[in-house]
C-alpha cells in the first residue's frame, strides 16, 4: 500500500465522516423542516460519496483488480436524494408544516 494512496484514503474518510456528522447536526439543530431539508441532501450525500471514493481507492490499490461498484452506489444516491427531498417537501407543504418566521415568501397551497 503506497503511502500517497494511504493519505488520500485517510483524508477522504475524515472528510466523509465530518460531512456526515455535519449533515446530522444540521438535521438536529436547524429551526424548521425546510431548512433541515438542506442538510441531508447535500452534506450527508457528499459525506457518503467521499467514503465511497476512499473505498474505491482502498480496494483498487490492493492489486486484485479494481473495485468500482461503489461508484454505482454514489450514482444511485445522487439520483434519488433530490427526488426524496422534493416529495418530502411536497408532503410537508401539504401538511402545512410551518416554516420559521424569518422566511421570505410562502410555500404553495397543495
Amino acid at each position, binding site marked *: 500500500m503506497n503511502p500517497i494512496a494511504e493519505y488520500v484514503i485517510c483524508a477522504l474518510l475524515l472528510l466523509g465522516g465530518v460531512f456526515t456528522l455535519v449533515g446530522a447536526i444540521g438535521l438536529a439543530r436547524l429551526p424548521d423542516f425546510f431548512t433541515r431539508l438542506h442538510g441531508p441532501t447535500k452534506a450527508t450525500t457528499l459525506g457518503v460519496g467521499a467514503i465511497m471514493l476512499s473505498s474505491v481507492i482502498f480496494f483498487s490499490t490492493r492489486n486484485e483488480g479494481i473495485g468500482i461498484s461503489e461508484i454505482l452506489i454514489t450514482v444511485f444516491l445522487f439520483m434519488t436524494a433530490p*427526488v426524496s427531498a422534493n*416529495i418530502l417537501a411536497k408532503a410537508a407543504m401539504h401538511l402545512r408544516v410551518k416554516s420559521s418566521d424569518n422566511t421570505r415568501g410562502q410555500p404553495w397551497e*397543495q
Partner: protein
Amino acid sequence: LMLIFWELTSLVSFLLISFWTHKQDARRGARMALAVTGGGGLALFAGILLIGHIVGSYELDDVLAAGDLIKAHALYPVALTLVLLGAFTKSAQFPFHFWLPHAMQAPTPVSAYLHSATMVKAGIFLMARLYPALAGTEQWFYMVSFTGMATLLLGAYVAMFKHDLKGLLAYSTVSHLGLITLLFGMGTKLAAVAGVFHVINHATFKASLFMAAGIIDHETGTRDMRRINGLWRFMPHTATLAMVAASSMAGVPLLNGFLSKEMFFAESLQLNLPGLWAWLPPVVATLAGIFAVAYSARFIHDVFFNGKPVDLPIYPPHEPPRYMKIPVEILVFACVMVGIFPAFSVGPLLYAAASATLGGDVPDYHLSVTHGFNLPLLMSFMAFFGGLLMYSQRQRFFDFHARFREIDEKAVFEAVVSRITAWAHALTGRIENGSLQRYALLLVVSIVAVAAAPLFDLGLFVGSRGLTPVDWPTGLAAAALMLCALATARFHRDRFYALILLSVVGLIVALAFARFSAPDLAMTQLSVEVVTIVLLMLSLYYMPSWTPLATSTPKRIRDIVIALVAGTGMTLVTLAMLTQPFTSISEFFLANSKTGGGGTNVVNVILVDFRGFDTLGEITVLAIAALGIYAMLKDTALTPPPGDGMGHAWSRDAYPVLLRQIARPMLPLALMVSVYIFLRGHNQPGGGFIAGLITSVALLLQYIASGMVWTQDRVPFKYHNVIGLGLLFAVIAGAGSLAFGYPFLTSSFGYITWPVVGKFEVASAMIFDLGVYLTVIGATLLALVSIGRLSPHSAIKSRREDV
C-alpha cells in the same frame, strides 16, 4: 358381545318410544329412556371390563367359573356396583324406575313386547346369568334385595293411583321387577328359583294384560279408567280374559301368579336377618301383596264394572275382531295351566332356566297347586283381603295421594337437561368470549409457564466461552434498537410514528446481520423490510390513523409484567446459549459447498441445494399467501377515511412529476442490479430471493409513481402465471435428477468455456433459483397490487380485466 346387544336394545327402545314423533312428551320420554338406560349401559360396560380384567378373559363360562376369584378381588365392590347399576337402570329398579312408565307412550305392540316381557327383563337376565359369579356376598345381598324391596313397594303403591290403564300396568311391572330382584337378592338357591319362576309367570300375565289394555284402548279410544266403566256388558269375552290375568297378577290361587307369589312369601320368611330386621321382608312382602291385589282389583272393577262408561270417544265399544283376542287367550290359558298343573306344564322349563342361573346345582323344590295350609298361604290370604279392603276404601287413599304434588318425571328430567345445557352455554360463553386478547394471553402465559421451570434453574448463566467485549458503535446501535423497540410499544397509538420506529428497528437488525458476518441475511432483511413498509403504508390508508385507548390500566400493567417476564426469559436463554461451546454439522456444508454444490456462497448453496426442499416449501408458502390475499380481497369494498385523521384531507395530486421522471430510469437500472445479484448468488452473497425482491420493488416503484392502470397496461403477464411458472421451474429443477435415477432435488453442475467469454458455471440449482426468483416476484406483486386495487379509483377502472 352381549354388551353390544344390550346397548342396541336401549338404542332401539329410544327409537321405538319416539315412534310417535309429533307428540312432545313421547320425544322427551324417549330421550329420558335413552339417557338412563344408556348411562346404565356405560356403567355395565365399565363393570364388565373390570370383571374381564380380573378374570383375564371375557368368555362367560370362565367368568362364571372364577366366581370366588372375583369376589375376593379388591375391585369386586366397584365391579359389582357398576354391573348392578347397569341391571337396575335397564330393569327400571328404584331409583331409576321413572323412565319406564313414560316409555308407555310407545304404541301398544311395542310396549307389550318391550316393556313387559323382554327388554326390561334383560336386567334381571343379567343378574341371573352372573348370579354364580357375583352373588352370595354381603354387598350383593344388601344392594339387590333392598333395591328390590323399595321398587316392589313403590311400584305397587303408585300403580294404585294411576288413572291411565297403561300407567297402572307399567307401575305394576316396576313393582314385579322389584319383587324378582328382591328374590335374587336373598341369596338362597330356592329364592333364585322362585325369581326365575316369577319371571316366567309375570311375562305371561303381564303381556296378556297389556294386550287387553291395547284392545280396550283400540275399542274405546281412551285408556282413562275414570271414563271407562262397565265394559263387561260391551266386551264380555275380553273382560273375562283380562280378569283372569289380573287375578293371576293379584296372586289368586289356581293361577300361576299365586304359585310364584307363594314361593316368594315362603322365601321371605326363611330370610334369617339378625334381630328385628327378620320381620321386615315378610311384612314388606305382604304389604306389596296387598297393594298388588288392590290395583288388580281396581283394574278389574273400575274398568269392567263400576257403572256406565263416560263420554268415550268411540261409543258403543264392542268385541274386538277375533284375531286380536287369540294371543290374549293363549297367554291366559297358559296362566291357568301353570296355576293348576305347575309341575307338568312349566316344570321342565323352570328347571332348565334355574340350572342355567345356578350353574347346575338346582335345589329340590316341589311344584304343586298348593303347599297345604302354612304361613305363606296365610300371608297371601291376608294380602287378598287387605287388598280388597284397601280397594273399597280407595276414595280415602285417593285424597291422601292427591295431596302429594304429582311429579311428572319427564318434566323434571327435561328441566334438568335444559338447565345443564343453559349452564354449559353460559360457561362456554364466558370462557370462549371471542376475545383474541384472552386467547393470546392464555397462549403466552402457557409458553412462559412451561419454559419457566427449566429457565429458572438456568438463571443468569454465562457459559464457558465467556463474554467478548463490545465495540462502542455496536453498543450504540444496540441501544438505539432497544430504544426504538420500546418506543414502538410506547407510541403504538400513533400508527404512522410506530411504523417509522418499526422500520428503524428493522434497519438496525439488518445492520446487525451484516455486523455478525451474514451478508445474505442483511440484504434479504433490507428488501423484505422495504416491501413490508410499502405493504403497511398501503393498508394504513384504510385504517384509522391512531388507536384509541381500549384496555383498562390494571390490564395494561398485567400485560407489561407478562411481556417483561417473556423478555427476560429470552435474554437468559440467549445469553446461556451464546456462551456455551458449540459443535454442529456445519463443517460438512463448508467442506462440500464448492465440490458438491458448485458454489462458494455456502448459505445460498444450502438454500438451493443441500436443503432445497425447505426452500421449495417456502416459495409454496409465498405462493399460497399471495393466492389467499388475492381471494380475500377479490370482492371486498373498503371506503378509506377522507383524511389522515389529523385534520388534513388527502391531496389531489397523485403522481408528482419528479417522482414519475425518476421512476423511468430506475426500472432498467434496478433490473440490471437484480440480474447481477441473481447471477452471482451461487458464489457471492445474492440469489433468487434478493433478486426477486429487487425486481418487485422496482415494479412497485412504477405502481407508486405512475399508478395502477398505467403500469398494469405495461405489464404483459398475469402474476398468477408468474407464480405458477416459478413453482414449475423449481419443481423441474428438482425433478430433472429423477430422470437419471437420482433422488428429487439432486443438483448437477458443470463448467462451459466459450471462446470469448471464457469459463463459466452452469448449475441445475440456477434453474431452481430462477423458480424462486419468479415466485417471489409473482407473489409479492400479486399481494400488494391486490391491496392497491382496493382503492376506489382503481377499483372501478380495473373491473374490466383482472390481474
